[in-house]
């Protein structure tokens, strides 16, 4: 029986070198050579500064921007690092709310979101993704319905015609892969950058 000890030890060392060092390091080398942008997190630079990643959502609160979905991520409390406080779109601590469907806290939170959104645009029904937190807390997308819902506010704040903003949303709407796989989405960060790039009226 103890004869099997040597292969157990040696195999562990060999497989660690192969799958734990050679494999990930070689993959890093190849990835950096052929897909450098994606391998480094699809970062977006503007005026020489990194403004974020194409794939990671940001916490938009200003009325002139399209807002992403609510985010349940948290971060350490600046006054007491042992505690954690709400920190939406914390890309160093991803996660969801884990609120169950019958949780009072969930329904109260959704109701508050709902109220604020109704005041902003009383004419349209509130799309469900705009009042629910995403799984990662970093969802870069909203549904086209959620983008269209925000068009009147953004247009008003920016003094743009609604039709112009709606056109921009359509341009930034991505359909399903091959028309089949996934769901239609709107990338919030890219849409907002496009808004900023519009010539002032």
């Amino acid at each position: 029986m103890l004869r099997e000890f040597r292969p157990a030890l040696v195999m562990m060392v060999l497989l660690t070198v192969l799958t734990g060092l050679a494999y990930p390091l070689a993959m890093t080398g190849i990835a950096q050579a052929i897909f450098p942008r994606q391998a480094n997190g699809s970062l977006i630079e503007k005026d020489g500064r990194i403004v974020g990643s194409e794939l990671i959502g940001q916490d938009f609160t200003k009325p002139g921007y399209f807002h992403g979905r609510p985010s349940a991520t948290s971060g350490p409390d600046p006054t007491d690092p042992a505690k954690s406080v709400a920190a939406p779109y914390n890309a160093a601590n991803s996660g969801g709310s884990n609120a169950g469907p019958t949780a009072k806290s969930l329904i109260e939170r959704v109701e508050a979101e709902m109220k604020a959104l109704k005041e902003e645009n009383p004419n349209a029904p509130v799309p469900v993704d705009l009042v629910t937190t995403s799984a990662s807390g970093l969802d870069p997308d909203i549904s086209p319905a959620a983008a269209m819902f925000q068009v009147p506010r953004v247009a008003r704040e920016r003094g743009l015609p609604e039709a112009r903003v709606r056109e921009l949303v359509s341009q930034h709407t991505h359909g399903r892969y091959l028309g089949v796989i996934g769901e239609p989405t709107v990338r919030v960060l890219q849409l907002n950058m496009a808004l900023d790039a519009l010539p002032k009226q």
Partner: protein
Amino acid sequence: MTFIGWFQIALFCAVVVVLVKPLGGYMTRVFAGERTFLSPVLVPVERGFYRLSGVDERTDQNWVTYAVSMLLFSLVSFTSLYALMRFQAVLPFNPAGQSAVEESLAFNTAVSFTTNTNWQSYVPETTMSYLVQMAGLTVQNFVSAATGIVLAVALVRGFARRSAAGIGNFWVDLTRCTLYILLPISIVVGLFFVWQGVPQNLGAYTEATTLEGARQVIAQGPVASQEVIKMLGTNGGGFFNANSSHPFENPNALTNFVQMVLIFSIGAALTNVFGRMVGDQRQGWAVLAVMGFLFLGGVAVAYWAEAAGNPAFARLGIDAAPSSFQAGGNMEGKETRFGIANSALFATVTTAASCGAVNSMHDSYTPLGGLVPLFNIQLGEIIVGGVGAGLYGMLLFAIVAVFVAGLMVGRTPEYLGKKIEAKEVKMAMLAILILPLSILGFTALATVLDVGLAGPANQGPHGFSEILYAYTSATGNNGSAFAGLSANTLFYNTTIGFAMFIGRFLMIVPMLAIAGSLAAKKIVPASAGTFPTHGPLFVGLVVGVILIVGGLTFFPALALGPLVEHFAMNAGNLF
């Protein structure tokens, strides 16, 4: 539910089924030691492995030696992973400056990854260094998966061989599985993931200044290389806390589709390996049919429940109807790019297999939507199942099914020409009963102790579901969670650690005993009295046995959790 949603589910099933034969054929050749197109490159590496570790590749092991090899290898795995986590602060590849992992967490995580569970009591991006992620966790992603696969192959050899003493050589099977199957697929699909946006770097976390001027720290790392084996080996441990819902792990619907196919590919192909090795591929298809039947039932319930959404939202007047502008349904804890169909499908796939990766938060599912993952694991994850574990779990049920059939007609049961006798049935029942013992036992314990009751984040029946899910997931070696549970405590880390250990090894040892006992038997020639095990009658019988065993055992616990919550939700009760 929408047509396009069902169409995507059908497309997924079709791709998995198409892959069964080619992958099954390739894997059969690998485990038979035949030449494959990769042999010119890999044979020298393989030989080197055997020479350095002192393994004679022509030696066959009996079931006890095979089991001891596997256990020793798991012990070495556990020890090295534990040490790596405890010493990560002073080791290289640690740009985020992570400190040593605390003892009970390191114990829990080391058990978790060596048992192919990948339960995570920690937040990876704030806990683990890149070195631990690569040389610790990624390694276990490979070898714990390979261990599962070779155990299934060993059991199949038990059926296929006649009057034989051995069931293969663990070291040879382990090496071949890693070199010829897991590594090549990981390299190719891993690079596809990078192309689609999954990061692969060793840099420090990125500091960005957002459009509104706030500071955003973006976690980075060698994600793609771990992501692919996490799915292929049905491991499921996320590089990030949000797992496959994190846009860096799973950037778009296409990577999501590929991830789901990866979870099922090896498990489904193993049914074909089984068929080929016992000399009748129909036997494999029959097993796959049982799996497919149970799978589609689960998907239908989960998709329906999640698409129907939360009635409390409807009362607030929220628009959750599916349209061409939104997915609708219960979007709490789900990502926009996956919507309802691909989230419900992923949840069913990941728990049918023992993967445990998630692209949506199961804790926020509707009660019946969350019941499906829970029930899938409680059935023993035999619906395709964990790589290897699914097949051997299913074959244990098949043994019980032929035994039941034998009782009905008063004839000694046979399966694939082997007489199923008292020893095999006892061992099969032992392995099957381990599951409820650990799941229900630990859940009962946690619900009466203060340290256990401190865990759930949700009140009412959902809190109970969180505890039940944790021990179900641990014992089933799944690793997904109703993640509201605060599991990073001494009590949960320890009990969940033991549940994972029990669920893996106390099932494997009886299973290998069956393999050894079967291999030694002669083949009984089929006669008019032989019960055919490739037809619809057998498929129906196995499905029945699985549902009755699973249903009867777990129904009371499920009634206290998801079922009562379902009725409470519809009655408008909140907790």
